[in-house]
C-alpha cells in the first residue's frame, strides 16, 4: 500500500515566523518512493525550512505535510526518517560505533541487532575499521561519512540531507556524491537533498526542485533524465551542461525579478 502513496506530501505548506517574516510561501511537493529529489536555490530561499518541515521538526504555519498519508511520521521500523545535517553533529564524547548506534538506542532496538546494523552501516560508508575511534580523530570527510552511516543505520524510508557536503573540499565532495549515489541505488533509498550547487544538483538528482528567495518559494520542478548509474565522466557530457545551463537560467531569472 505504501508504494502508491507519496513518501512525503507537502501541500500548500508555508512558514511565517512570529515576527512576520515569510520564510516560505505555500509549497506543494510530493516525493515518491525511490526518488532522489534535490532542493536547489540560493541562500534564504527556504530550502532548509522546507527540509525541516518534511523532517517533522518544524510545523508549517499554513498547509500540511503528510507522511505516507499520515499527519505525523509513523513510529515504526519501516517508516523511519533520518537526517544528515550541514555539519557532522556527532557526539564528541562517544566513539564512532556508539554515534552510529545512537538512533537505534533511542528507539530501544535490542543491543545485538543495533550493533550489527551499526557495523553494516559503517561498512557501507567505508569506515568498518574506525568503529573505536573518537570523532575528533577523524577528518571532516570521515566525520560526514559517520553522520551518513548514523542516518543509514535506521534503514530510513526517507533520507533528508541538508547541504551535507557544503563544508568539504571539492575532491571530497565529489567522492561523497558518488558514494551517496551508490548507496541510493544499492539500498533503494528515497532521498530529499538540499544544496546550492547547481552541478551537484544535476549530478545527484532524478528531479530538481528550483527555489527562489523573498519569499521562499518553488519556481520549477525539473526532471533530470541522465541515466543511472552516473559516473564522474557524466559531468563532461553536453546533456549535463545543458541541464546546468537551464537550472542556472531559472535561478537567475527568479533573482533578477523585482525582489
Amino acid at each position, binding site marked *: 500500500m505504501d508504494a502508491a502513496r507519496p513518501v512525503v506530501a507537502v501541500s500548500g505548506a508555508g512558514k511565517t515566523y512570529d515576527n512576520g517574516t515569510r520564510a516560505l510561501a505555500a509549497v506543494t511537493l510530493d516525493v515518491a518512493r525511490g526518488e532522489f529529489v534535490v532542493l536547489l536555490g540560493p541562500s534564504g530561499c527556504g530550502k532548509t525550512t522546507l527540509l525541516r518541515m518534511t523532517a517533522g*521538526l518544524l510545523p508549517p504555519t499554513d498547509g500540511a505535510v503528510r507522511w505516507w498519508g499520515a499527519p505525523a511520521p509513523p513510529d515504526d521500523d519501516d517508516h523511519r526518517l533520518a*537526517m544528515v*545535517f550541514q*555539519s557532522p*553533529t556527532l*557526539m564528541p*564524547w562517544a566513539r564512532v560505533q556508539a554515534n552510529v548506534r545512537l*538512533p537505534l538506542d533511542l528507539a530501544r532496538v535490542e543491543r545485538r541487532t543495533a550493533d550489527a546494523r551499526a557495523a553494516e552501516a559503517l561498512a557501507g560508508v567505508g569506515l568498518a575499521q574506525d568503529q573505536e575511534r573518537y570523532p575528533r580523530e577523524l577528518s571532516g570527510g570521515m566525520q560526514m561519512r559517520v553522520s551518513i552511516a548514523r542516518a543509514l543505520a535506521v534503514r530510513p524510508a526517507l533520507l533528508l540531507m541538508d547541504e551535507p557536503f557544503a563544508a568539504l573540499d571539492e575532491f571530497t565532495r565529489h567522492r561523497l556524491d558518488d558514494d551517496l549515489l551508490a548507496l541510493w541505488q544499492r539500498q533503494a533509498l528515497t532521498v530529499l537533498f538540499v544544496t546550492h550547487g547547481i552541478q551537484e544538483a544535476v549530478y545527484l538528482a532524478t528531479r530538481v526542485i528550483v527555489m527562489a528567495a523573498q519569499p521562499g518559494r518553488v519556481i520549477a520542478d525539473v526532471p533530470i533524465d541522465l541515466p543511472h548509474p552516473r559516473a564522474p565522466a557524466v559531468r563532461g557530457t553536453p546533456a549535463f551542461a545543458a541541464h546546468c545551463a537551464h537550472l542556472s537560467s531559472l535561478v537567475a531569472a527568479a533573482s533578477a525579478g523585482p525582489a
Partner: protein
Amino acid sequence: MNAPAHLGVLRLAAPLGVAVLLLAAWQAAVMLWEVPFYIVPAPTRILATLWDDRALLAASLGVTASVALAALALAVVAGVLTAFVFAQSRIIEASLLPYAILLQVTPIVAIAPLIIIWVKDTRTALVLCAAVVAIFPIISSTSLGLRSVDPGLADLFRMSRASRLQVLLRLRIPSALPYFFAGLRVASGLALIGAVVAEFVAGTGGQGAGLAYQILMAGIELNIPRLFAALVVITSAGVALYAAVGLLARLALGGWHDSEVTEVR
C-alpha cells in the same frame, strides 16, 4: 612528538626555575641585610619550622582540608541539583538566579558570624560557610553546560522521539561535563579559601584548630616562621586540590574533549 614533550618539560621546569631564583634572592637578601626572623624569616628557617612543627601543622591541615573537602562535596551536590532545576525551565532560572548571584556577591566574612551563631556545631558551620563560597561556579557553569547542547544533536534526538530522560542522560549531561569540570576547578580553590576565612571568623582553637587558627595564633605570638610555614601548607593544599580536580577532569574527558587532549594532531 618531540616538540610537545619538550614543551611539557619546559612547563614544569620554567616555573620551578623562577621559584629557585626568587627563593635564592630572598635568602640572600635576608642574610645580607640581617633581617630579623620575626620580621621576615629566611626560606631555610621556614623549612626548618615546617619540619619542627610538622605534627601541629599536619593536624591543622587535616582539620582545614576535611572542612574544605566536605564543603566542596556539599557545593557539588547542591550546585548540580540547583543547575538541574534551573535547566528545567527558563522561568525557574530567571526567578532564582538573582538569589544565587546575591549569595555570590555577599562577602563570606559578613555572613559567616551569622551562620556560626545559627548553627550549633562549629564544624558544620564552617562547612556551610565554605560551601556557600564554593557553590556559585558549580551552579553557573553546570547550568550553562546543560543548556549548551548542539542544536543539530537536539534535532536528531527529537526526530528519534527520545524521551526527556534519554535527552538528559545521553545529551545534556555529557554536554555539560566539560563545563561542570571548569566550574569544579574554580570551586575547589574557593572551598579552601572559604574554609580558611570561616575558621578566621570562628576563631576555633583547641582540638579542632585548623590552619587559619595557627596563622592567627602565630601572628599574635609573633611566631612569624610558623605563620609562614602554615601559609606554605595552605597554599600547597590548594595546589594539590587543584591538581586533583584536573586529574579527575582528565580521567573523565581525556578521550574526547579538546580541553583535555594533550597530543597535537
